[in-house]
């Protein structure tokens, strides 16, 4: 707290002044990094940028529908809470979803007399990213389950988050499960009570919810979910 509060200036410069060389080297290396980043990323530029197509949905440059209008009928399921012993949604009729897949073809998830397992996936979620190839490997090994329809709903889709667009992600993983894309507001996921990703809902032949679960599944648990939908018995 004296007047001599200013720290000591270095009183001399070193003999052979390499300081200027150090500064020059730092600037040069940063410049090389910048040029390298520009060159590499411009040569990597793929033709997929987000092109908003009004409120109806998002169609990317390759023509894929990443989000689209989903019409929902029926009563929304309560929000999923994994800590509750008995899920209040069990036995409730699942809402009907009508929308499109990545290619824009119409897809409906309705009470059509067939059991089904619906998976809600977020492209940016590392757990979904880990789960998708695991499920696909299981399906490749075991075949599509007989008598149970599978459907994936890419949701929480936004170009502001990594691994966008979800169509590139799922196609890249050779995903064979039918897809119904959610809306920009994730209305389908909300109607099914989604609170976290990945999220699975098993529905029996009468259109009633028999199981809901969230988080990465072992393939045993995935197979049990399919059995629950098929038999209509809650686990």
């Amino acid at each position, binding site marked *: 707290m004296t007047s001599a509060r200013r720290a000591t200036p270095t009183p001399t*410069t070193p003999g052979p002044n390499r300081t200027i060389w150090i500064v020059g080297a730092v600037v040069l290396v940063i410049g090389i*990094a910048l040029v390298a*980043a520009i060159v590499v990323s411009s040569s990597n530029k793929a033709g997929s940028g987000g092109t908003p197509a009004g409120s109806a949905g998002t169609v990317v440059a390759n023509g894929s529908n990443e989000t689209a209008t989903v019409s929902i009928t029926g009563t929304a399921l309560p929000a999923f809470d994994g800590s509750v012993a008995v899920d209040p949604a069990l036995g409730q009729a699942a809402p009907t979803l009508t929308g499109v897949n990545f290619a824009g073809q119409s897809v409906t998830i309705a009470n059509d007399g067939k059991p089904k397992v619906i998976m809600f996936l977020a492209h940016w979620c590392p*757990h*979904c990213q880990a789960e998708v190839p695991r499920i696909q490997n299981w399906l490749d090994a075991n075949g599509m389950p007989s008598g149970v329809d599978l459907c994936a709903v890419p949701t929480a889709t936004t170009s502001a988050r990594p691994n966008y667009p979800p169509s590139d992600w799922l196609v890249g993983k050779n995903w064979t499960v039918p897809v119904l894309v959610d809306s920009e507001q994730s209305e389908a996921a909300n109607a099914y009570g989604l609170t*976290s*990703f990945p999220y699975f809902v098993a529905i029996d032949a009468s259109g009633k919810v028999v199981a809901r679960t969230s988080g990465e599944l072992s393939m045993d648990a995935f197979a049990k979910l399919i059995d629950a939908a098929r038999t209509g018995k809650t686990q």
Partner: protein
Amino acid sequence: MSTATVSLFAALLALLCLAGSVTVAVLALMHRSRPDSIAAGVFEDLRPLALWLAWVVAVATTLGSLYFSDVAGFIPCKLCWYQRIAMYPLSVVLLVAALRRDRSVWVYVTPLAGIGALIAAYHTQLQAFPDQSSSFCTTAAPCTERYVWEFGFVSLPFMALMAFVFIIAMVLVARVPAAVSSRSTDSDLQIGVS
């Protein structure tokens, strides 16, 4: 510039910080063991620059983090915020220290940057191995989400970690007075002298 370009550039800068920190550590060892070597000379010449280099890194990291949240639109998670809290003040503190040639600033900077580095290290391994925290993502910004993933290991917290480490290395380089410091007249701010 696209986000991809900025991400790659930032990743390269992080690797430069890593290379710089390793180089400085080697120079410091050479300086200690062989004071007459060229490496020791380079180390001496680095001293007057060290605080400026630390400041440049702090500013680049601060601006980079603001770019990723406000321009690229990435939502910062909780751990990101803790690292920001440790990094942003450094861009001001180090400027003042560099202007004042305050070699003792390491006393203030190392705890702050050290805490930031610890959080960044935890966050880095969490993004590298996301399965340990939980098996699901919530709708809010999860700390496991890899907004940037260059070269198979460079994430945003890795960049923060490299910046913190480099800043710590630089303030420690500035700490020890140069060989000529016996001429210094100021005793008020010499607490860092070893």
